[in-house]
Structures are given as C-alpha cells and as structure tokens.
C-alpha cells in the first residue's frame, strides 16, 4: 500500500523544470485535467513557481496594454522630419 502511495505521489509530483513549460502552455490553451491537477499540486507546494506564474501574468498584461493604439510608450519616438515631408509630398501628389 505504501509503495503504491509513493509511486502515485511521485507520478503526481512534478519538478520545477517540468512545471515551468506547462505554466506557459496553460496561458495559450486548455491543458488536460490531469496536467492541470499536477500543476496545481506543484504550485501549492512551490512558492518559487508561483512567483514565476505571476511574472508571466504580469508580462502578459503589460504586453496587452502595450498593444493599445494610444499607449504612451516610446513617447520620444517621432516620425523623422524628412519622412514627414516625403509623405506629405506623396499625399499631395496622389490626392
């Protein structure tokens, strides 16, 4: 009985190396029930992987926000003046 329990535990018990790609994968598609359970068990015991999961969540939210049309990033980047002139001339010629 004890032997069976131990083998069940070792089957359920993922390492951090096993869990890390699964945490990432979980963000992109649904994983199987068993996989999901294994991840949950590992995360319940491993604080460090929980931090990792949070970090990936933060990166995702930042990225989505970065994608907005009016997001004020690269605020100093402006279309170079010569490019603007060129485009204005092109617009004038093609109107």
């Amino acid at each position: 009985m004890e032997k069976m329990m131990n083998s069940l535990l070792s089957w359920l018990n993922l390492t951090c190396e096993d869990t890390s790609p699964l945490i990432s994968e979980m963000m992109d598609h649904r994983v199987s029930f068993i996989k999901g359970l294994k991840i949950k068990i590992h995360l319940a015991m491993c604080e460090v992987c929980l931090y990792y999961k949070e970090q990936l969540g933060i990166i995702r939210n930042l990225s989505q926000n970065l994608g907005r049309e009016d997001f004020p990033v690269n605020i100093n980047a402006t279309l170079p003046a010569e490019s603007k002139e060129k485009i204005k001339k092109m617009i004038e010629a093609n109107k």
Partner: protein
Amino acid sequence: MNKQEIDANQWVDRYGDLMYRYTLVRVRDQGAAEEIVQVTFLAALQATHTYAGRSSEKSWLFGILKHKILDHFREIKKNRTFDLSPDDDQDPCEYDSMGHWKKMPKDWRLDPEKSAENQELTEKLVLCLDDLSDKFRQIFVLKEIDGVSSEQICNEFNIKPTNLWVILHRTRNQLKNCLEIHWFDGKKQE
C-alpha cells in the same frame, strides 16, 4: 447624415507620430517602420472611397496600418522559417539535476491585474523585447501584443503547435530574466 470628412492634408501632423510609435513597438527596425507608415497613407489615399464615416478617421487609418504590419511579417516569412529550428536559443532558464531552478524566480511584489499600467516596467519591457531574436520577437508580438490566436499564427506562419508553445515559453523566460535584471534587481538597489 453627419458623415465625417477625410482631410488627408492633416494626416501626417495628426497621426504620423502615433502611427509610427505603434509600428515601432511591433517592428523594431526604424526604417521599416517609416516605410510601413508611408505605405499605409498611400493605401489610405487610394481607398478613401471605402471610408464610410462610421468609424473615426483615426481608427480607419489604424485598421489599414494593422494590415500593413501583418503584410510586413508575411513578407519576412517568405525568406525564412518561423518554426522552431536547431539554431534557436535554448531555454534561457536553467535547472539543476533535481529539476530545481538554478536562479529562482523572485517575488516582484506586483498585482498582475494592476501591473499593466506600470509605465516604468513597460519601458523596460520594450527594451527587453529588442533583445529577442527577430523570430521570437515577431511571434511574441503577434500572440501577446496583438492577440492573434495560436491557430492563426500556426497556420499563417507554418509553425507546429507544439513548437509554438516552446517558442513562447522561451521568449517569456527571456523577457522574465531581462526584466528581473533590468527592473527588479535595479529597484532593490535604489
């Protein structure tokens, strides 16, 4: 009907910088970004008759811009594969023989839900994006910045789904390491 008019003479001054910045987040090369903005305005001029006035002039132009950026990615795809190849970087995170992290992820002490508006962190993310290889950057941009579905990315860029997970995992790990060094570790010293 109060149809919005198009004023092409004002386009560059009104939207040029905004569109350029938007493109620069997605396409790191400045020359390419300038060209995409130019091509967008030209396409818009030729399509003024399709402008129905339902959306604002700005969102109409951004709609065209998004297509042109995707066209740019498609053009790159013609010359090389987007799928995982042997010369791609290995997982940037390392583990010991027991499968433990060699460098443990740290508690960033941020609420993931509230972190999106963090300007300082976003600026670092933009820098970290530029450290990625072209391929990884483009796939990450499509998936996470533009929210294109995995299926569409795999189909359009001929990537096997399992390889897409590997690419995204490595990219996220690289970004996480980069942010940890340039943002989190830096903050501790302040």
